[in-house]
């Protein structure tokens, strides 16, 4: 029982650390993407449509590592 409780505690801790650290990168990345896209849109409002498309793609790519850490956290919580 002692070992099982230890494993469960380690599981929850690991999931929390994984998700928390994994969210830093995408957060910073998407912030940079959004800031620069807004900058460009303010400078050239007629380009806003094209910029929005490119911005969403860049956001989705920046988000990928966050999604991976979410998957690892889910596997830790529900599968391991």
């Amino acid at each position, binding site marked *: 029982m002692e070992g099982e409780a230890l494993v469960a505690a380690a599981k929850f801790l690991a999931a929390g650390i994984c998700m928390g650290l994994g969210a830093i990168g995408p957060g910073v990345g998407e912030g940079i993407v959004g800031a620069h896209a807004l900058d460009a849109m303010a400078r050239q409002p007629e380009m806003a449509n094209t910029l929005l498309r490119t911005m969403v793609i860049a956001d989705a790519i920046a988000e990928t590592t966050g999604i991976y850490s979410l*998957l690892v956290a889910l596997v830790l919580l529900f599968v391991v």
Partner: protein
Amino acid sequence: MLEHLGKELAFRFTVGGVEITFHPVVIAVALAVVVAIVLVSLWLRRGLPHTPDAPLSRRAAFLAGTIDLFENQLLGGVSPRLVRQLLPFVITLFFYVLFCNWAGILPIPYIVAPTQDLNVSLGLALLVYLLTHYYGIRAKGVGRHLKGYLEPFPFLLPLNIVGDLGRTLSHGFRLFGNILGGAILMVVAPTATMSISTALVPVVGPALGWTGRVPLSLILNGWFGLAFGVIQAFVFTLLAVAYIQVTAD
């Protein structure tokens, strides 16, 4: 707490040592979305004018507006020849993913968004992967399409293949992870509010939890269900277009 994520309703088969799992709820909801889209499309088509100079009906105007939106927003940078081939597929993909995402917030027990099952989202990503090859071969021929894997240098061939597969995997995982993460948050946050307020506030804790729970659920369903559904469907379709465009143009 997470039982209505539909995990326990599963048929498991073992075929040749490989365990295959079917989730009846997911299959049923995915097919129901197909039926709903077909019915809505038929209804919209019946609103089209029969003669070119008939007055524009509301349904026809809606269709024209939708097609115009997709042509300009999603397929803005694609060559006109490819736009004609891709437009029906892109619109169908967008609305299928959108309605699959939105199915998750229906207040019916056991109903989940089909896209929060990896089988559905990865299946859609694989469909897009096969279509990239189809349009690549159609646009450039088999030889030149396969030669694209040897560029810029022939020794980068393994890297190109791995990059292709990783792209497809992350395409599917992105939709899956976003929708599943939202669904889990929609369940966990109101329950956590409830238990935290019950534990911390002495007498009025449970009442406070219930009053906080309703607006919180509404906000979470609106944001993670409706808004994220649109955003993720848009991103999924946009990336599909980008992947097809890279190989076909």
